[in-house]
């Protein structure tokens, strides 16, 4: 599994000059797994390389459980990236969420999530490897921005295409390579075995790329706004950088992978979940919190690092746009 070496020397030298490139990260440039660490913070994020490639995105009409928004299938090219091996955990999220847990160097001008009105883990677990949940896409993207300011490395949410490509791990069938309806419970926490709660990440078998809990546990935010006509638009621009952008202030993102609440059919690689207003129905305030979901306890996220890193200006513009700032 090797990458085309697309990381420009310019970006690399910027990172080096900032003292932000560790040995592990240098290895990562060769397409190896690495651990993103933080100065002074005892948490790391395991990053898994996903090679460039091409795949058929969406599901065939004949696939059992298929929904109309999963096609028609489009052949999509994907640039290489790293993806976090697991969903981001509360432990990994806390240094951003709580200013006092963010050891120096503390990024300037990063706004932190507001306090939760009540505990939105609903008793399912926090410290010790449980997935960070109940957050708006805004919060997940802000976390990426914080990571970027903190490490100098551009992280973001996966696009829908990247997510599905990484999930499929080469398969064309309903579930990822090696996974079948009958063996789903070996790979995923979902309706049948979750006891209506998420579980610590990484306890089930990984997929062929070494990614854990792609299916089930918590659904995962993508960069894309949900669009029922996604595939029509994708057909015109079948490259991985394609993102359905925000067109209205209240547009909603797409989540992928199903959750601890899902049925088996909702864990299919091609299944798409549109965020809806109800995921925040018990937020009594208007405007509703841009940080938290009162009724979306089943949503979390994982991050990617594109090998082709944007310039600092491009990254800044990206976050500004995606965060609606």
């Amino acid at each position: 599994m090797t990458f085309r070496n697309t990381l420009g020397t310019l970006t690399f030298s910027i990172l080096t000059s900032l003292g932000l490139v560790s040995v592990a990260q240098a290895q990562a440039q060769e397409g190896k797994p690495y651990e993103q660490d933080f100065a002074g913070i005892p948490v790391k994020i395991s990053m898994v390389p996903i090679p460039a490639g091409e795949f058929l995105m969406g599901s065939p009409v004949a696939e059992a459980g298929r929904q109309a928004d999963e096609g028609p299938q489009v052949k999509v090219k994907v640039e290489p990236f790293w993806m976090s091996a697991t969903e981001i955990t509360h432990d990994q999220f806390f240094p951003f969420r709580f200013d006092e847990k963010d050891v120096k160097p503390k990024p300037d001008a990063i706004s932190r999530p507001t306090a939760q009105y009540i505990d939105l883990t609903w008793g399912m677990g926090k410290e010790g490897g449980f997935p960070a949940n109940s957050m708006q896409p805004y919060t997940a993207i802000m976390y990426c921005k914080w990571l970027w300011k903190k490490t100098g490395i551009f992280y973001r949410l996966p696009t829908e295409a990247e997510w599905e490509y990484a999930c499929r791990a080469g398969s064309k069938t309903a579930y990822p390579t090696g996974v079948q309806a009958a063996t789903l419970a070996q790979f995923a926490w979902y309706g049948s075995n979750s006891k209506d709660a998420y579980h610590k990440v990484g306890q089930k078998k990984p997929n062929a790329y070494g990614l854990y809990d792609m299916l089930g546990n918590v659904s995962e935010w993508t960069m894309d706004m949900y669009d029922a006509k996604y595939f029509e638009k994708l057909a015109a621009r079948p490259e991985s950088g394609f993102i359905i952008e925000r067109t209205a202030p209240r547009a909603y993102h797409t989540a992928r992978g199903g959750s601890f609440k899902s049925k088996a059919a909702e864990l299919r690689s091609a299944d798409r979940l549109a965020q809806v207003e109800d995921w925040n129905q018990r937020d009594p305030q208007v405007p509703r919190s841009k940080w938290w979901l009162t009724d979306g306890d089943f949503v979390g996220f994982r991050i990617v690092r594109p090998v082709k890193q944007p310039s600092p200006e491009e990254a800044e513009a990206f976050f500004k746009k995606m965060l609606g700032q």
Partner: protein
Amino acid sequence: MNKDFQSRRDFVKAGSLLAGGLLAVPLTSKADGFFNSSVADEIKIALVGCGGRGSGAAVQALSTKQNVKLVAVADAFADRMEGGLKNITEALTASGSADKIAVGDNKFVGFDAYTKAIPLADVVILATPPGFRPIHFEEAVRQGKHIFMEKPVATDPAGVQKVLAAAVEAKKKKLNVVVGLQRHYQNSYRALLKNKAMIGDIVSGNVYWNNDGVWVNPRKDGQTEMEYQMRNWYYFNWLCGDHINEQHIHNIDVFNWFKGSYPVRAKGTGGREVRKGKDYGEIFDHHHVEFEYADGTILNSECRHMKGTWAKVDETILGTKGKILCGDAKIVDYKGKPLFQFNKKTENNPYQAEHDELFAAVAKGEYKFADAENGAKSTMTAILGRLATYSGQVMEWDTALMSGLSLQPAEYSWDAKMPLNPDSNGLYPVAVPGVTRFFV
């Protein structure tokens, strides 16, 4: 609009006259169907207090099945009034019902804004900081309006007394009053209450509101002391009543509700451990109170605003045969055997339900909701807890309620002389258990 239909507002007015005994002849019964039409009927609402919660309540009121129109908004601050109206408009535009906003020039600002907004409505939403609630509620009742008011309904015993007196008037006038203690409108809590006999007699309870805390608005140049305190109302007791009153009231109220009574005394401990700076006014960051009921039942109540500590917002009600676990929506016996489990898939949005039910009743001309008395007494319970933790003394319900203790400033104006002022370091005086005294 079909003018043959009597307008809702006229009906409400007539209904309150009737209730007051001023009309000798009853109006046409609703069974005739005359008042049941929701086609031409319009229920006018006024919003008093346009912050996030007030705007949320207005949107919920406007999202009911009835033909509800927002006709007036009021706030002490112009920016809050405009901001709230903008947020409501955005929310309704998104749901395709922006035509429900008919405020026009009825946008009122200042301490007396409520007196101008209330007359224009059939139903009034009261959502300012709780310190103002008693005078707003009193006025809305005086004018014969149906009312949705947020919890808590006061911050001091004098305010509680005022609300209790107005609640009696509201009952006489058959005005529907819903208080935003929304667990009363939540399916799981209603199901647990229905099955409470499973635990035998209630003998004790544990209730919690432990989490991170809330927002801070730093002092800005040119603010008068009144403006600063109102922008930071959470940290001043005349406005908020401390977090035991503003948030933890929910959990305390659940126990009162299930128990069917209110405590007779309280003792407790509390203080400021981590939230001490000049940005935090006078409130404590933790309270633990033991409430005692007339039959000896004990309620342990715990609330805390401390980041990084054990967080829980929940209620457990203990009986002779088992316990009710509210957060899990289940009832178990003492061996852990489940006796009842509410199906969480049938949970509702209680914030919406409280408005759905209120407006359905108003539209039908029904008198169904009299939440004010409970709202006032659960507020009093929380205030009693605060008096106990602030003083470190045993606090008797009757003594405290009858004390007439008021924390309100002598006048409501931007230049008002405030009862509480910062010292030269910007710090406010804070209660000291064992030193602070009430009623002696």
